[in-house]
């Protein structure tokens, strides 16, 4: 006897609704990939799918640019930045939320102002600063400013999650005689693992896609990151939308792959963060 049980029906309906929402949500994405596969003749045709499909745009983009070296530049800058941001932000969040050091609340609010200054205004003084340090066209000239810009975001998230963590664990650690560092490393960090994952993914995406500062700091073509590549395909008179969309798709792929890999960690967090008696 096969009756459709209530939970099964509910699950079916929920999935159906999700797919429906997804379908509409994905229209721009589908269009983006589709245009990347089109000939210039059909580039701006309003249909979502056109025929024939051509890979010429991807070939052009790959041929025109030394993508391997550029990819490496992006990777170095991004990985370094993510590492620094996660480390520095979690240390600060720990000091603020758990150690509750005097003055850290004030520092927290001050550091928050980082996020509030429009980037367009920061660009000029940063350019001057980096020139004075001699860090133009270097990796570190991007990594450090990126880290400075990314830490406040991480600190907001991690502080919120750390504050929300059950305090008994920290008490227990103190009773056990842990010093601050050990508490940080062995208690605080595992407790907020989902948040750490989140900050990692987010900082990776932000840094990978960052454009303005990379434009100013990296003026030599050997140093360029991936985000500069699309610019040549969206120029004022010489526009090749197919190639533009193709290269932007290529740039997005590593991010998506990373995200797919990393988002599984959220599930594991469910088990790791639990407090057992």
């Amino acid at each position, binding site marked *: 006897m096969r009756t459709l049980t209530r939970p099964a029906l*509910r*699950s079916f309906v929920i999935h159906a609704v*999700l797919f429906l*929402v997804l379908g509409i*949500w994905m*229209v721009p*994405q589908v269009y*983006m990939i589709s245009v990347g596969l089109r000939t210039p003749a059909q580039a701006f045709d*309003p*249909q979502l799918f056109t025929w024939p499909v051509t890979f010429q745009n991807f070939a052009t983009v790959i041929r025109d640019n030394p993508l391997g070296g550029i990819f490496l530049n992006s990777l170095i800058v991004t990985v370094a930045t993510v590492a620094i941001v996660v*480390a*520095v*932000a979690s*240390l*600060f969040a720990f*000091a603020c939320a758990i150690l*509750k*050091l*005097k003055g850290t609340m004030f520092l927290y*609010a001050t*550091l*928050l102002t*980082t*996020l*509030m*200054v*429009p980037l*367009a*205004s*920061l660009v000029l003084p940063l350019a001057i*600063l980096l020139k004075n340090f001699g860090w133009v066209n270097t990796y570190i000239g991007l990594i450090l400013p990126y880290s400075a810009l990314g830490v406040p*975001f991480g*600190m907001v998230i991690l502080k919120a999650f750390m*504050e*929300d963590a*059950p*305090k*008994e*664990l920290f008490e227990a*650690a103190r009773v*056990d*005689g842990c*010093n*601050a560092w*050990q508490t940080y490393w062995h*208690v605080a960090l595992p407790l907020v693992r*989902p948040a750490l*994952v989140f900050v990692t993914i987010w900082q990776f995406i932000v840094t990978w*896609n960052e454009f303005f500062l990379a434009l100013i700091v990296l003026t030599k073509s050997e140093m360029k990151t991936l985000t500069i590549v*699309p610019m040549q395909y969206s120029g004022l008179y010489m526009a090749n*939308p197919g190639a533009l*969309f193709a290269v*932007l798709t290529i740039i997005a792929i590593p*991010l*998506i792959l990373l*995200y797919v890999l990393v988002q599984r960690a*959220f*599930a594991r967090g*469910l088990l790791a963060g*639990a407090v057992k008696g």
Partner: protein
Amino acid sequence: MHVDTLHAGRPAAIALRRSRAFNPTLYAFALPATLLFVVFIAYPIVWVAGQSVYTKSNAAEAIFAGLGNYRSVLTDPTFWIVVRNMALWGVITIPVQMLVGGLLAYFIERHTNALRGFFRTMFFLPVVTSVSVVSLVWVQIYAPYYGIAQEYLKHVGIVMTNSAIGDPKTAIYALIVVNIWQWTGFSMLMYIAGIANLPSEVLDAARIDGARGWRLAVHVIVPMLAPATKSLLLLGVIGTLQTFPIVHLMTGGGPNRASEVFGTFIFKQSFVLGDTGSGAALSVIVLVVALVLSLVQIALLGARLSPAAKGRAS
């Protein structure tokens, strides 16, 4: 007890929390962040503030203008259009993104299984999509006559007579829709992290108490997602004030300033008109507004303890 804490090697030379009456070495935790800030953010902010009190004509000397730049900015009608736009932007995008993101996170996390990773990824895709693509595609979607929406709406007999971003009355709303489309995945991810963090025994306890489905969601899960919500609110307000590329690429702030936001206004003042003084003054104003709003939020929301932390000493 956690095994590793039991076996904490060296005896603690530093006790936690009780003796925070000055243990300066603990400040080492806060040092790297502060250092980065001072060098790369504080200096530029001071530089910008300094610039804001000078006017620079095309000649090289800067004339001290005191608060002149601020006065001219605040009396510029465009400024108030921008304030209106930013208020609309914040008031609409933040709650909508939270609601939709939260709903998506809830249903995906708790009601899907095999497809969970798939849904998590797909709804997050717009977030990683480059703004150049987003702007081009959405301009195409909004275009009447040869646009994507028109192409499919014509099957139901709707004929668009204008582009939503070409009409001063609707431009900002059209941009808000694009923003919501792109960033809801971020709220969703935040809530996914929050849900992943929920201690399962609290949920089990509540379920045993009889709370199910809807009641469980509203009375137990939502309050426990408070840290995620607080962060989203804070970041949302700040992010709203920072909006730039999507507006610049899609409407340039037009038509006739109708969709101008702080980012585009500052860009035009500083980079197009070459008036760095008033661009800097605007930046300082944005900074102050953001700071005030954030402090208000921290003061109001920070005081509220989330239920999960009920048992702890302050």
